[in-house]
């Protein structure tokens, strides 16, 4: 039974509560629901987390921004081609900290998703992000990126306008920014499309988010020639927040309420805001050059390999 089936059962019970008017029974059922959630939703499998990360009701970037910012002004366009709606960018005020926020936005309904292109940015989206990051650097504003995308859009126009170049340019420029950069993975972190906003001093990740090189379905298809093995692939790919924290790819996990962020959005937003404020405070003590050096050094360290030391092998051969 996966997490969605469990959630359906919880919703069913909650539906029953709404119908009841007997207070004692309501209390009993509420206890029952809590017990059930604690029993079944604590040790989630990797596939459960994939399902939660893609959940229809999962809070989107805009909801995060609306909760966290006292004020937010959205800025549009890359000044080259057009405005990409799958990336929201602008200047916001989080409890007195003026920051540039760049976020990938999923839709809640089909129409919204078509408008947002299912949160799959085109090159112009990444160029808009870069433009505003440069602007933030100019005015010494910290940058916060919210990552939630299945990947960069693979289409005709995207290729014609240099999707690869746009992502590469973002990686290149982001690694050298002299302002604090905090990336928060709030849902799906899909491949290069996510990394293009994810080269940060501190990478935070919601507990039930995923961050991977491609979708579990794609992984199963490419390596095992069978897309139905996606749940096994999710397990093998080490894409959950716990695994990634162990590898050092992310720095901090943001707790989610039991059963996923959408069960208690308020709590999710509060935790996220708290974590961002703390990390902003931590990064404030570094100068711009220090921030750049720290960031480059951090990414320089990633890799999993060994090297033969020829000196130790003298006399062996």
């Amino acid at each position, binding site marked *: 039974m996966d997490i969605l089936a469990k959630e359906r059962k919880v919703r069913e019970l909650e539906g029953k509560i709404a119908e009841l008017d007997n207070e004692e029974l309501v209390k009993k059922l509420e206890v029952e629901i809590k017990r059930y959630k604690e029993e079944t939703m604590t040790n989630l499998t990797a596939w459960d987390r994939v399902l939660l990360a893609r959940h229809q009701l999962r809070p989107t970037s805009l909801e995060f921004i609306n909760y966290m910012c006292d004020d937010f002004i959205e800025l549009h366009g890359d000044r080259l081609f057009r405005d990409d709606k799958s990336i929201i960018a602008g200047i916001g005020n989080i409890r007195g900290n003026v920051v540039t926020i760049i976020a990938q936005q999923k839709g809640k309904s089909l129409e919204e998703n078509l408008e947002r292109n299912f949160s799959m940015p085109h090159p112009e989206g990444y160029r808009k992000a870069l433009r505003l990051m440069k602007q933030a650097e100019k005015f010494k504003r910290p940058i916060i990126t919210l990552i939630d995308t299945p990947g960069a859009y693979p289409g*005709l126009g995207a290729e014609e306008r*240099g999707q690869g170049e746009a992502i590469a340019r973002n990686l*290149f420029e982001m690694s050298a920014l002299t302002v604090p950069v905090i990336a928060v993975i709030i849902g799906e972190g899909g491949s290069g499309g996510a990394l293009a906003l994810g080269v940060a001093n501190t990478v935070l990740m919601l507990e039930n988010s995923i961050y991977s090189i*491609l979708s579990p379905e794609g992984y199963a298809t490419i390596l095992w020639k069978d897309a139905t093995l996606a749940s096994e692939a999710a397990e093998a790919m*080490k894409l959950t927040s716990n695994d990634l924290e162990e590898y050092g790819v992310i720095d901090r996990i943001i707790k989610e309420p039991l059963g996923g962020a959408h069960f208690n959005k308020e709590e999710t937003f509060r935790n996220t805001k708290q974590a961002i404020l703390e990390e902003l405070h931590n990064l404030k003590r570094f100068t711009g050059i220090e921030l750049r050096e720290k960031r480059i050094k951090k990414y320089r360290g990633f*890799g*999993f390999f*060994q090297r033969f030391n020829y000196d130790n092998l003298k006399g062996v051969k």
Partner: protein
Amino acid sequence: MNDLIKAFENRKSSKNKFKIQRKISKASSVKTDVPKGLYEQCPNCKETVNVKATIENNFICKSCNEHFRVRAVDRIKITVDLGTFVEKGHGYITLNPLFQDGYEEKIIAYKEKTNLDEAYIYGYCEINGMPTVIGVMDSYFLMGSMGSVVGEKVTKSFEYALYKKLPIIIFTASGGARMQEGIFSLMQMAKTSAAAWKIAEQKQLYITVLTNPTTGGVTASFATLGDIILAEPNALIGFAGPRVIEQTINQKLPEGFQKSEFLEKKGFVDKVVHRDDMKDTLGKLLLFHRRYQ
């Protein structure tokens, strides 16, 4: 991290059968695009071609001008001055961070087949007498995909150029990031891009030559960050693979889409250069950027 490496060592210590190779000159008979036998059909134009003549002709089909894929070693042979190449940074061992079944065996098989330690080699060389650092990806090693070792070696080659204050030329040929190493492969994109930034900061010349095929995570990192981006004729260059795009948009791609000439037209490649002219073009560019001391 350290725990993981230890666990890996314990698991694999009995299986360690990597060979030490210092020289690349003995690279052996790996399967290439060039047809085998004396006379064979060219896979592109279906014309019967003399195989030996094709190889002597820089691996280009004489009748249709198709540039066949070239192994890294051959690429170095046809690009640099004879006897000037010195390989650096050899001896990396690819590990298996996700404990994928059969991945180590696959790597060992490729190592034996290609005589390379990974899909990328780099070193010092001279082109028309101009000293430079050269890095070449080999698409015959697991599609030239970028895992931890390739990422590390690319970064090392940038650092070597930085240290020696030399220009750097990279020939790319890759299917993208290596799926078997998961998130570690993804991080190599950021790592190599940051290394390219360091070169740019010191105002050292960085030339990339995109060869068939350059796609995925390599296109989206160091391949498209060169000061000058050259490409070989009719090479596949793009971010998403053609099949993925066809599935997404549900229609056939137009003729010549994602080929080098297309990219030149769209403004993402500086110049498409024939393989015969590659050495001279690179030599001239190096000459133009020579630093007087």
